[in-house]
């Protein structure tokens, strides 16, 4: 077990390092000189040179990389070009909103996909199953940003039931959470359905029925407990991805989270913030995966030695 944890931990650290080096390299190749963006297009050569020295851009590339990694380890990503405050402050300030959205979305996904997936499997090929399976196929084929716009149009602009953008109160979270949950819930519904079908064919279910357990009890005690394990792991990974900021959906709803910040900084060519976002997002995704992998090993008895 510890060997496994150690190995996964090393992979996780490697991933974050790759992300850090990749962002560093890509900023150097990016269009537009960040120094010119910062001090203006009409700066004199002396001013440009001074600014380069100030940001350490005149040093050898490897030295710059070393300094960058060293600072990043202490959450120092420099200053935002457009806002002039530390990147860490901006990026971490967006975390609560992203965390909130991810949590609400996850709850929605679980409430929809687990019961519906099980019911579809129990009533295989009956109308409910057809609708759920077909619906999940369609849900996976819709562009998420478009779903968001349609929801805004219907519930905010036409019916005036919910706010259309930003974070102006608890009801603001409903539309972005539904938009995010739709494709993920569709995926989990399929998984839950297939897994339930597999479990229903298992000998221990026949045994449980033979022992005279009611249909409900069999479903709750035996089917649900076994069928939910794969769905739980997938949901863990999905939670990590949601924590990494749902760039597109957050942008559509103007939700003040990490993803929206990332897209905004990309469009504003605010590279220090982009770097900070990417590294923080990477850490979130990697941590979630790590926890899921280790938890899975602990939960599934087949891994116990």
């Amino acid at each position: 077990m510890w060997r496994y944890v150690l190995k996964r931990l090393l992979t996780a650290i490697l991933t974050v390092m790759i992300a850090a080096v990749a962002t560093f390299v890509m900023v150097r190749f990016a269009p537009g000189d960040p120094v010119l963006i910062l001090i203006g297009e009409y700066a004199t050569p002396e001013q440009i040179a001074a600014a380069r020295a100030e940001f350490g851009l005149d040093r050898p590339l490897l030295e710059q990389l070393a300094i960058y990694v060293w600072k990043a380890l202490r959450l120092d990503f420099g200053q935002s070009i457009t806002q002039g405050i530390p990147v860490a402050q901006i990026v971490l300030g967006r975390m609560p909103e992203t965390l909130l959205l991810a949590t609400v979305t996850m709850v929605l996904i679980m409430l929809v996909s687990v019961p519906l997936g099980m019911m579809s499997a129990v009533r295989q090929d009956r109308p409910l199953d057809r609708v759920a399976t077909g619906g999940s196929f369609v849900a996976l084929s819709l562009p998420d940003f478009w779903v968001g716009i349609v929801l805004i149009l219907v519930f905010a602009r036409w019916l005036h039931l919910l706010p259309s953008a930003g974070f102006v109160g608890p009801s603001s979270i409903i539309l972005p959470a539904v938009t995010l949950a739709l494709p993920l819930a569709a995926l989990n519904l399929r998984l839950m359905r297939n897994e339930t079908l597999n479990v229903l064919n298992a000998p221990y279910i026949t045994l449980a029925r033979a022992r005279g357990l009611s249909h409900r009890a069999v479903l709750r005690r035996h089917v649900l407990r076994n069928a939910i394990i794969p769905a739980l792991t997938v949901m863990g990974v999905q939670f990590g991805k949601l924590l990494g900021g749902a760039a597109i959906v957050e942008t559509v709803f103007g939700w003040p989270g990490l993803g929206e910040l990332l897209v905004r900084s990309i469009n504003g060519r605010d590279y220090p913030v982009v770097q900070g976002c990417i590294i923080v997002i990477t850490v979130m995704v990697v941590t979630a995966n790590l926890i899921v992998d280790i938890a899975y090993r602990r939960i599934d008895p087949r891994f116990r030695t």
Partner: protein
Amino acid sequence: MTQSAAPVSESDAWQTRWLWLALALLVIALGIWFFATVELAPARVNTRARLLPPFSVLQDGSLAIFGTDQIGRDVFRQVIEGAQTSLFIALSAALISAAFGAVLGVAAGWIGGRFDSFMMRIVDVQLSFPSILIAVFLAAFLTPSLISVILVLAITRWAMITRLSRAITVRARKQGYVEAALVSGFPLWKVLSTCVAPNLYAPLLVVITAEVSELILAEAALSFLGIGTPSDVTSWGRIISQGRNYLDTAWWIATLPGLAIAVVVIGIGLASEVLRRRLTKAGWTML
């Protein structure tokens, strides 16, 4: 693949129905594509026909079934032009990633050892991220152009194909016929191309089809964010993104093109599903 649908007692009638539906949708999409390349002039600016609702008749008697946008361009024509852009990008990216991924996968599976574990580690790292996020990361640092979008999308997709090709190669290598061919003194390239590669065809066909529909969604999302296709190229994501500014006055600009995306993606997705079922039934192993 994301969907691990268990092959559970579905009747043949069911399968045939899906097959027909998928074919119909594909034909519609291809028809629109063909029609677009042959018949239509590029969407023209027409200031007298600004923001007309769907099914308006324009001055020249033509019917704007999707309405017009803020500078009087027919939204339906833009959707058709967007279809070309979108299908071109998605197909190119899918083929590039498949070629690249398959070569790396076969190499990893055949060579084995350290190279194999190194490649698989990279694949694991990449697959632990949402592919759209990787695309956004990469696109952030590039000047938008058709080539850059195709490359960015191809980079987000090679890992899955590498993993698949590797697994198939590893399995094929253990087969008697590969060993026999090697012992008989056939050159390596001949063994790879005649004994190993054919095992890849069916699974890759299925995966590539599924990828195309996911790539269409990814391209639309990137263009929607303004980091996909350049501004002079009509694309679905861009039309929707511009339509967002006119939600109150002209709801059709942002919503109707989304239906086009959905129809094409559903059609290709169903086609991939049907292909998978058919080929599995015909004895191919999909892994």
